[in-house]
């Protein structure tokens, strides 16, 4: 089994997104487990742009690998500050670097208490083992 990586300084959702918190801003992407499950990612479409709002647990995009289609769900609510435009032409960045170059968007959070609903790296690992 490929060794998967889930950095301790991030928070994770049940739908396999990660959040990196910096003040009131949250950077969001998908976990190493998620990219491994999907396989080679060939397409990503984010349904919201910079300046638009996003809601926690609402779909914010679609991601496609060679064999599968999956929905992206936002872990937090707020206004989108930045979107990773590189992913349009090089979606494989998500496979190669899910936590760095594969970041998807940055949100200015409207309710940081939503972070309490997310899991720590340890809790996420336990959650993965139970799947």
């Amino acid at each position, binding site marked *: 089994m490929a060794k998967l990586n889930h950095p301790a300084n991030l928070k994770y959702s049940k739908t396999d997104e990660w959040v990196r918190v910096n003040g009131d801003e949250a950077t969001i992407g998908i976990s190493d487990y998620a990219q491994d499950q999907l396989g080679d990612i060939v397409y990503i479409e984010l349904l919201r742009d910079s300046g638009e709002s996003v809601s926690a647990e609402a779909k914010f995009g679609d991601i496609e690998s060679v*064999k599968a289609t999956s929905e992206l769900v936002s872990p937090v609510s707020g206004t989108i500050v930045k979107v990773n435009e590189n992913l349009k032409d090089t979606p494989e960045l998500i496979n190669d670097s899910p936590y760095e170059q594969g970041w998807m968007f940055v949100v200015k959070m409207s309710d940081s208490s939503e972070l309490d609903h997310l899991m720590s790296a340890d809790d996420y690992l336990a959650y993965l083992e139970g799947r």
Partner: protein
Amino acid sequence: MTAEENAAPSLKRTPLYDEHRALDARLVEFSGWEMPVQYSSILEEHRAVRTRAGLFDVSHMGEFWVEGPDALVYLQYLVPNDVSKLAIHQALYTQLCLPDAGTIDDLLIYRLDENRYMMVVNAGNIDKDFAWAEQQAGNFDIRLTNRSDETGLLALQGPEAQNILQPLTEVDLSNIRYYHFDMGKVDGIECIISRTGYTGEDGFELYCSSADVVKLWRDLLAAGKERGLLPAGLGARDTLRLEAGYCLYGHELDEATNPLEASLGWTIKLNKGEFIGHDALAKIKEQGVKRKLIGIEMVERGVCRGGYAIYADGRQIGALTSGAPGLTLNKNIGMGYVEASYAVPGTPVSIDIRGKQTGAQIVALPFYKRKK
């Protein structure tokens, strides 16, 4: 949770199951079998086949032997292609059809000897096909045996296939033409060595006893290592055959689809004599098919998949039967059926992708043809 809820019907496994586990393959259910969808990545395996070679375990497929004085007469009745054209050690591609011309399965028929033939059928249809074959055997003087369980099958596909295989056999592979085969030892194992495949590349399919297939698999992987041979799973098998424009039973072919709609008219020999489905096919040919198999190439961003609807002139004109990223072509592609009048290469259409009409065009098949 009760014991009954716990006991799911178990999936079948080929003799190579432990090999796949050892190689860290991702295993999935396919037609009642637990098979590797990928070992490393579908993309890597697909590219390996196109540029070097890949090795597929296809031991789950079915093999039936037809022997006896009426073997040819029986097969001529059973399938639309002309089996009498087969020389010994030659193979052909054909279908099993219902009387209404619906497709029961597509298959290869190998002529092993004077009155000995082998039918090679899809894994998911083994029981159905054998029951049908037995049902049609009637008064023909033949012996029909299902050898699926005792037969292993590996597909070695790619431009390096012959270079990898030749050192393992004294059979001169350069003498085996496309859709022909020889019988001899590979790696000390008795094999049918056939120059056939499902990827659009040059390559060989090796039939052996299921008792020997593990050794053959291991030794082929070792022999091909230097030339970049990779084990390849069903994921790559599907993306490769899609680029090559080959039908996959259950997608482009099924019992509600006749082979003429699927552009397989070249395998149907109406003049050879009586066969099951003959009159229905003759009528369809005369009247023209109502829908036709075509290729789809995405023009706007998006991946099309089997099941998605195809639109033109503001209405649905058909649907996709398969679709995926074209990994060699850098275009997203699919196959599907549209109303016959729309089946013209270049026709602009749109595909419903998650509720959004996305621009595409109809193209001729195949998408990919290897350089000879």
